């Protein structure tokens, strides 16, 4: 820009293109798409939001359960197969025989007739079959035709689970926990950013519009909250026992209790930047002619604030909401990492890291993965915010 102000020779066509009228949103959109990193960030965020929304679908497709523990298969490496214990397999077969006695009988007869299994007693044929390695069982079953074999194949398929990203300290699948963690972390991040910007919007608008004593009071509050070391205070609040707080006892025992508490704590300390920003814009808007016009026409305060002022602060707020999501995800992770945020068994990126600390030298992958996801999401939100800032800033409009 300012440093390479070389004269560029342009054709008449280009000139006409530049001088053509463009609506504001088109300018903003074009400028946004020129910011390559912001576009990449948007793509990454869309992907994560998609994953978060589709988490139950992903779980049902892969057949994995985010909370199913398996004490025998803790800290499995990446891309490992885990086989269900023999006891559990035999229990499943017993169930199969009990529920579908006819199918089981015909299958048994066929297996023995074809000589695929050599059980000591004929009624043990199916148990003998599943006692083998699941892959081998499936191979044998594929040689048998008919409905019963297909039915059993379905059951045998569940005997072996594939853990693309290994298992964690309780033998739970890391991949599906990361997927559900995306849901929790992104959800908390977005919720906190939206809620705190709403509060900031209200406080900033009231302070800026009314001025005087209210302004001084609210701004002192904002300033002092901004200058505090937030984390120690958050730790104190996070450690509160809800049983001792009058009126909040009903939350105790709710499985999402830790999430509500975390969102509350984060919102409490993140509305200040938005409040300052909104107050600043409202202060300058207050002196503008269109506000005077609205006042002259007899509009009351709420109409002026909501109808005439808010549309003008939405754009800068969008930027701070975007940046706020990234920051909230970081805070959520930090508090969960200290063991004060979202509690087990609900997975979040932060508490997965907290648990990974215990055996971080033996299973470093458990610590690396959630961190990478936190990093990728946060940096995407930061770049997106930067891109939006560039795109909607009237001073930066390049035509």
């Amino acid at each position, binding site marked *: *820009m*300012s*440093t*390479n102000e070389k004269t560029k020779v342009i054709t008449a066509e280009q000139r006409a293109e530049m001088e053509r009228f463009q609506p504001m949103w088109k300018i903003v959109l074009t400028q946004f798409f020129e910011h390559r*990193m912001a576009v990449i960030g948007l793509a990454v965020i869309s992907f994560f939001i998609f994953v978060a929304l589709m988490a139950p679908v992903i779980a049902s497709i892969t057949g994995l359960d985010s909370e199913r523990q398996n004490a025998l298969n803790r800290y499995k490496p990446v891309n490992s197969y885990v086989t269900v214990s023999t006891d559990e397999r035999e229990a499943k077969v017993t169930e199969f025989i009990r529920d579908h006695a006819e199918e089981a009988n015909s299958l048994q007869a066929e297996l023995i007739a074809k000589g695929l299994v050599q059980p000591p007693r004929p009624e043990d044929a199916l148990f003998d079959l599943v006692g083998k390695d699941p892959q081998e069982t499936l191979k044998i079953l594929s040689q048998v035709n008919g409905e019963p074999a297909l039915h059993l194949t379905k059951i045998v398929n569940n005997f072996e689970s594939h853990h693309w990203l290994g298992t964690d300290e309780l033998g739970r699948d890391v991949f599906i926990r990361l997927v559900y963690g995306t849901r929790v972390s992104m959800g908390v991040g977005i919720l906190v950013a939206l809620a705190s910007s709403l509060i900031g919007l209200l406080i900033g608008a009231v302070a800026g519009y009314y001025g005087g004593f209210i302004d001084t009071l609210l701004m002192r509050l904002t300033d*002092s909250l*901004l*200058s*505090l*070391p*937030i*984390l*120690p*205070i958050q*730790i*104190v*609040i996070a*450690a*509160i*026992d809800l*049983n*001792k*707080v009058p009126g909040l006892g009903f939350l105790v025992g709710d499985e999402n209790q830790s999430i509500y508490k975390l969102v509350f704590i984060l919102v409490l300390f993140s509305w200040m930047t938005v409040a300052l920003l909104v107050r600043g814009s409202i202060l300058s808007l207050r002196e503008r002619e269109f506000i005077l016009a609205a006042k002259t026409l007899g509009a009351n305060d709420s109409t002026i604030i909501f109808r005439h002022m808010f549309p003008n602060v939405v754009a800068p707020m969008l930027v701070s909401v975007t940046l706020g999501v*990234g920051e909230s995800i*970081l805070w959520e*992770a*930090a508090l969960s*990492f*200290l*063991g004060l945020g979202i509690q087990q068994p609900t997975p979040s990126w932060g508490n997965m*890291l907290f648990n*990974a*600390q215990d055996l*971080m*030298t033996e299973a*470093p992958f458990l*610590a*690396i993965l*959630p*961190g990478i996801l*936190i*990093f990728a999401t*946060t*940096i995407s*939100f*930061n*770049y997106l915010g*930067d891109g939006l800032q560039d795109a909607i800033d009237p001073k930066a409009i390049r035509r």
Partner: protein
Amino acid sequence: MTTYIIRRLIQTVVVIVLLSYVCFSLMTLMPGDPVELMIQSNPKITSEDVARLRTLYGLDQPSYVRYFNWVKTIAAGDLGYSRTYRIPVSELMGPKLLNTFYLSLASLLLSILISVPLGIYSALHPGSKADNAVNFFAFAGISVPSFWLAIMLILTFSVYYKIFPAGGTFTIGIDENQSWDYFWDRSKYLVLPTVSLSYQSIGRFLRFTRSAMLEAMRNDYIRTAKAKGLSYTRVIWGHGFRNALIPLITILALSFSSLFSGAVITETVFAYQGVGKLVYDSIIGNDFNVAMVSFIISVAMVLLFNLIADILYGVVDPRISYK
């Protein structure tokens, strides 16, 4: 100027008193009190004993009465006794404060030393490849979770390469009087925590330096200075950087609070014996006296540094006058 400082000092004291009350009442809401812990450790305790103990410790009184009692003992110079460390709080705080001071100072220096030159360089070459790289470095800094960075540093430099210790403050048993060895030992333990604590502020400072410098170099007086025939360095440092300093000091002042928040996490991950870890441990461990004192000291420190930074504005920017 003096009246301004006095007014700000009074404000700071008021904020600290208010916060200490808020914190005190919040802590009464935390699970477990001293008597409950005694009940757990002594199965023979009777309910009469419990009631007597509660009266003895004043736990049966409302929180504001207990707060005033607590303030009275603090004012008398008695900071109380730590339940976990089994020593008076006053003896506990000194070395921990010093440790945190070393850590924060080292990381503040490191972040300024890295971010200011890099930021100025990228502001003078906007749009270049180096600028993009610096930008990414800065964005990564503000986006990386500091505790994760800490874990990665430990994995790389102390588990895999074994260059630096994984955690702690100094080698146990080292002679504190042999100054050079002691200094060397302490420095070794400081490297990883400092790096992990600094990276976030490096990112933030970098972005601010860059935009402040860009803004400053766009001003008319820069063109005037160039037109006068001043040397390049003089224009950059004397005219550009001098004006970019003002927003920089703002962010530097605000960074004390985030630096302290970061210190809580960093010290916890590295088991570094500072105030941040003390705040965390005492709150989690229900060590009431330590929690209150360390909390108040940390808040007071942050607020005091903010005040110092505010006063520094006046020095850097002659346009600001305090009335």
